[in-house]
């Protein structure tokens, strides 16, 4: 659709003059995706409007399009707001766009949640749309979001806007999660305003609601629930809802536990063990649902002297650097990686 017509259909857009619209064209901004990808500051200068007005315009444009027969909106690149990650995503030909289902996996404590929070905050920040966070672990910390915003030294107005645009829902079982997504779909069909504005769903630690299905007997049930979940995610994603799902991965059982550790993956990982290979949970079938799987890992540290009592160490070695690898990708090549740094303001 023509960008000019599109803009003129919105309330804010109607206030723009013919001259301003022509300016866009002159500067090579002719399509909707051009408009979205252009630097905000530049657009602001060009149109001589306030940044709030610009964001308002963008969000109105996003709402214009009916979510049920939408093609052009799928071309928008949201951008992750992380420079390094964006570069990597360009290389693997999968940018952050509507309808993508991303999985972020990694071992415990590596910063998956922090990365997901950052993606969510950046998304809401930039696009004036809403995000829905589904909490499966009763783990959501509004303080962490607040701290992140505080560290970015944002003014209280936009801070409030971001905080209000992130919605949090709690689910405790896989059944509840599926019902929740179906509920989302129904509300979308019923043209609920919140549902229409919500373009990103973040699900933290998906394995959480599946660990109770253990053993061979439960495996079938688990599989069927995962399939059902995958279907409801697909159903929403074809309507332009982007998903970011957290998963955890374990090192394969090449390690021996000494005296008392005795964990195993509850029969979940049946693949052939590979040396120090991090493997995401939930099996191969789930892996095929995601359009992109990112694995967050600690960079390899060479332990020069492995002290026996590591708790006696006075300083923590963690410098916040994480390696992000692309482990599967339905749109392009696999295997790129980039470095991100975990900071107080989120991941950069």
């Amino acid at each position, binding site marked *: 659709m023509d960008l000019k017509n599109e803009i003129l259909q919105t309330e804010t857009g109607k206030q723009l003059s013919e001259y301003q619209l022509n300016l866009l064209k002159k500067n090579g901004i002719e399509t909707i995706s051009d408009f979205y990808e252009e630097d905000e500051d530049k657009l602001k200068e060009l149109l001589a409007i306030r940044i709030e007005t610009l964001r308002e315009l963008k969000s109105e444009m996003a709402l214009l399009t009916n979510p049920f027969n939408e093609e052009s909106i799928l071309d928008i690149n949201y951008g992750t707001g992380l420079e390094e990650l964006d570069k990597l995503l360009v290389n693997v030909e999968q940018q952050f766009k509507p309808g993508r289902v991303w999985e972020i996996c990694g071992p415990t404590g590596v910063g998956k949640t922090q990365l997901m929070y950052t993606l969510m905050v950046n998304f809401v920040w930039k696009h004036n749309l809403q995000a829905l966070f589904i909490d499966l672990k*009763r783990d959501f910390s509004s303080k962490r979001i*607040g701290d992140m915003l505080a560290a970015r030294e944002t003014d209280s107005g936009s801070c409030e806007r971001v905080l209000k645009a992130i919605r949090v829902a709690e689910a405790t*079982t896989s*059944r509840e999660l599926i019902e929740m997504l179906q509920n989302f779909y129904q509300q979308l069909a019923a043209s609920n305003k919140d549902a229409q504005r919500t373009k990103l769903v973040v699900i933290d630690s998906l394995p959480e609601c599946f660990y109770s299905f253990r053993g061979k007997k439960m495996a079938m049930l688990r599989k069927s629930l995962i399939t059902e979940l995958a279907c409801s995610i697909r159903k929403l994603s074809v309507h332009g809802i982007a998903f970011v799902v957290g998963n955890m991965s374990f090192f394969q059982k090449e390690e021996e536990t000494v005296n008392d550790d*005795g*964990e195993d993956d509850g029969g979940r990982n049946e693949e052939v063990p590979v040396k120090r290979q991090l493997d995401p949970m939930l099996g191969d079938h789930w892996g095929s649902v995601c359009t992109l799987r990112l694995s967050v890992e600690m960079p390899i540290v060479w332990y020069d002297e*492995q002290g026996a009592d590591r708790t006696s160490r*006075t300083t923590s*070695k963690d410098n916040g650097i994480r390696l992000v690898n692309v482990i599967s990708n339905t749109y392009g090549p696999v295997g790129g990686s980039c470095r991100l740094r975990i900071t107080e303001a989120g991941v950069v």
Partner: protein
Amino acid sequence: METPSGSLKNLNIFKTSVWDLMQEEPNKICTGIKGVDENYGGGISLGHITELIGNSGTGKTQMCLNLCLNVQIPKTAGGLEGSALFIDTRQDFNPHRLLRIFQIKLIVIDSLSFTLQMIENKSKMFELLLELHESMRNLQRTYKVAWVITNVLTYRVSKGQFHLVPALGDLHSHLINERIWFSRSWQRYVGKTWDTCRLINSPK
């Protein structure tokens, strides 16, 4: 409890924003350790499973007892006015000290790893651990309680090297919400793994 299972039909999933959550009443139990309290915004949270990890003699039990007292601070003084249930697996605690058990807001298991490590059969132990997690979650769904469990460190061999890791395994590490590390020199770290945790409190 906001979301009883099975009645999601009329629930508006977009109802709660982060903004709303931030306006809610505080539901923290003060730990008395300044750095920890600051890091968690006032103490450990109700509805979370917090693990205290460290070798013996580093102050884990001490903190458990402190929490048991702090949960009882009256509402007028900004506390929760709740009770605590102390499950002591080594029988070195006198339960008569906790006479008023109503309104339980805090349940302590000291030490979780000790009981589980008594079990010889490892797969049975793992099974029990997961069952325990499941029932902890179930209780949390019905009553808003804070769980505090204690754990110790153990050795694991990887590539012929010894690594000191938390006992009870990786999946367990994932299932808990928070982990506080206790070291001999009274430093406190917060984070799920030793490699990623942050120093938040050290004595002057």
